[in-house]
C-alpha cells in the first residue's frame, strides 16, 4: 500500500518531467529516421529499421533511466519533500522500492510506446514482427530495470551528475566486459589482470540482454536463454536495490 503510493506518485511526477518528452521525441525521430540508413543498404531496409529502432528503444530507455533515475531520491532530499514522507510509520526501504517501482512503471510504458511505434513502422514498410522481436524488447526492458536499480542506488548516495556519470560508465563497460579479461599477454599474472578480473565479475555483462541482431535477422532465440538472462538481471537488480535500501537506511536527511 505505502510502496504503491510512493510508486504511483513517482510515476506521476516523472510523467510531468519535460526531459521525458524530449527523449521520447528524439527516440521517435530516430525510429522513423532509420529508413534513411535502410536506403543505403539495398533490399535490407526493414532489417536495418528493426535493428536501429531496437537500439533506439534501448539507448533512449537507458537515457531516461539515467536522467530521471539518478535524481529520484536525491531530488526528494534536495527539495525537502522527503521530510514529510519518511516521518510516517513506513520503513525507509519501502520508500526506495516505491521510487524504483514508479520508475519501472514509467519505463514499461515508454518501452511499450516505442515498441508499438517501431512495430507499426516496420509493418507499414511491408515487414513483419515475430516473437524474437518482442523477446528482444523484453530483454531491453530487463536491462533497463537493472540500470534503474543502479541509478536508484546512486541517487541514494551521491549527486545526480556524478551518479549519471557512474551509471553511464557502467552501461558502457557492461556492454564490453570481455575487454576486461581479453588482455594482451604481458598483463598475465599482474595485479592489473587481477583487478580487471574482479571488475569483470562485479559488473553485469549487459551483452546478455542483447538479442537485437537476432530479432533484426529473424533468428529464433531459445526461451530458456531469455529466462536465464532475465534471472541473471534479476539477481543484480535485487542486489542493487538491497544496497540502495541499506545506503538510505541510516542516511541523515
Amino acid at each position, binding site marked *: 500500500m505505502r510502496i504503491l*503510493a510512493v510508486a504511483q506518485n513517482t510515476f506521476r511526477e516523472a510523467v510531468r518531467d519535460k526531459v521525458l518528452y524530449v527523449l521520447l521525441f528524439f527516440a521517435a525521430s530516430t525510429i522513423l529516421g532509420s529508413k534513411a540508413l535502410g536506403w543505403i543498404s539495398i533490399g535490407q531496409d526493414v532489417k536495418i529499421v528493426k535493428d536501429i529502432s531496437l537500439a533506439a528503444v534501448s539507448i533512449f530507455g537507458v537515457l531516461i533511466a539515467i536522467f530521471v533515475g539518478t535524481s529520484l531520491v536525491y531530488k526528494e532530499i534536495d527539495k525537502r519533500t522527503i521530510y514529510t514522507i519518511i516521518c510516517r510509520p513506513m520503513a525507509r526501504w519501502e520508500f526506495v522500492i516505491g521510487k524504483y517501482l514508479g520508475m519501472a512503471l514509467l519505463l514499461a510504458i515508454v518501452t511499450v510506446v516505442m515498441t508499438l511505434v517501431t512495430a507499426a513502422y516496420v509493418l507499414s514498410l511491408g515487414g513483419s514482427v515475430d516473437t524474437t522481436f518482442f523477446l528482444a524488447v523484453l530483454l531491453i526492458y530487463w536491462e533497463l530495470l537493472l540500470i534503474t536499480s543502479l541509478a536508484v542506488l546512486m541517487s541514494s548516495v551521491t549527486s545526480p551528475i556524478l551518479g549519471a556519470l557512474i551509471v553511464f560508465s557502467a552501461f558502457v563497460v557492461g556492454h564490453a566486459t570481455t575487454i576486461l579479461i581479453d588482455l594482451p599477454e604481458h598483463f598475465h599474472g599482474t595485479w592489473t589482470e587481477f583487478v580487471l578480473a574482479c571488475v569483470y565479475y562485479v559488473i553485469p555483462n549487459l551483452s546478455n540482454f542483447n538479442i537485437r541482431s537476432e530479432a533484426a535477422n529473424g533468428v529464433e532465440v531459445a526461451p530458456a536463454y531469455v529466462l536465464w538472462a532475465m534471472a541473471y538481471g534479476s539477481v543484480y537488480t535485487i542486489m542493487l536495490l538491497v544496497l540502495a535500501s541499506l545506503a538510505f537506511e541510516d542516511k541523515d536527511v
Partner: protein
Amino acid sequence: MDAIATQDLGKTYRSSLLRALPPSLDGLSLAVQENEVFGFLGRNGAGKTTTIKILSGLVRQTHGEAYIFGDSVRKRQARRHIGYLPENPYFYEYLTPRETLDFYGRLHGLGTRERTAEWDKLSDLLDLRDIASQRVREFSKGMRQRLGFAVALVGDPKVLILDEPMSGLDPLGRRSIRELILRMRDEKKTIFFSSHVLGDVEQICDRVGILVKGKLTSQGRIDELLGKQDSPVEVIVTGLAADVVAELESKALSTRVSEAGHHLTLQDVQTANEAVRVALAKGGSLVEFTQLKESLEDHFVKAQEVSP
C-alpha cells in the same frame, strides 16, 4: 507516561571528508508530558531542528535515546504517534491539497473511506475547501503552512512536532496557527514546537526549554523560569502626607517621583500589599500596581550570555 522523553541525546554531523564537526546537540535530556504545549527555543544553529529531526526519524542520533510514548524513535512504531510540520514545508508541486492529503493518508496506512473522512475533517479545520482544486505550486506561504498543518494531522497523531510553525507568516497567519495549536491542546494533543517568536511562545506554551549551542540550559514553566512569584512590584501612590511617604520609602527598594505620583519599587507582592494597605489607610490613592517580571526575551538573551 511522558509523550516525549530524551536521555543524553546527542548528534555530531560529519563533513563531506568524514571529519567530525562540533556537536550539533549535546546531552539533551528532557521530558514533555502528555497534553502539554512545549516551546523549544534557541538561536539559529542551536540544535532545535536537529532535535526535531531526530524525534521525527529523519536523522539518527550519535548517542543517547529518544522516545515517543515509550517507543524508541529508531522504531517505526514511534512515528505512528507523531505528526510533523517542517520549517517551510515542501510538498509535490503538481498535486492539489486533496491529492496531497490522500497521498499522506496512504503512507499512514489509511483505507479509502478513512482518507475521505480525513479530507472532510481537515479541509474544514484548515479552510482548504476553497483551494481544493489548486496545485500546490500556486500556493502562498500561508496556504502552504495550512496544508502543512493538515498533513501533520493526517492519521490523528497524539503528538505534534512543529518546526518554526509561525516563521515567515503575517500577523493573521501567525494568529491562526496560534489558535490551531491551542485548539489541538484542547483536543488533548501534545505539542512540541520550536519558534523564534518569543511573544507567541509566551502566550501559548505551558513549558519551555532553551537550547544554547546544542545544550539545554534551562527548562520549566514560564513563570518559574521568569521568577514571576518572587519578582518585585512597582506601586504608584498619590495624595499622601510627607511623613507617610517617608515611611513607605523606607520599605522600598527604590523610589522616584513623577506626575503620576510616588513610584515605590517593593521587594515582592506581600510587601507591596502591605504598603498599599498603609497608603490607603492614610488617605492616599493607588494609581498603579505592576509586577516587574522579566520577559521571556530577557530570559532568553540572558541564557545566551551565561552559556560559555
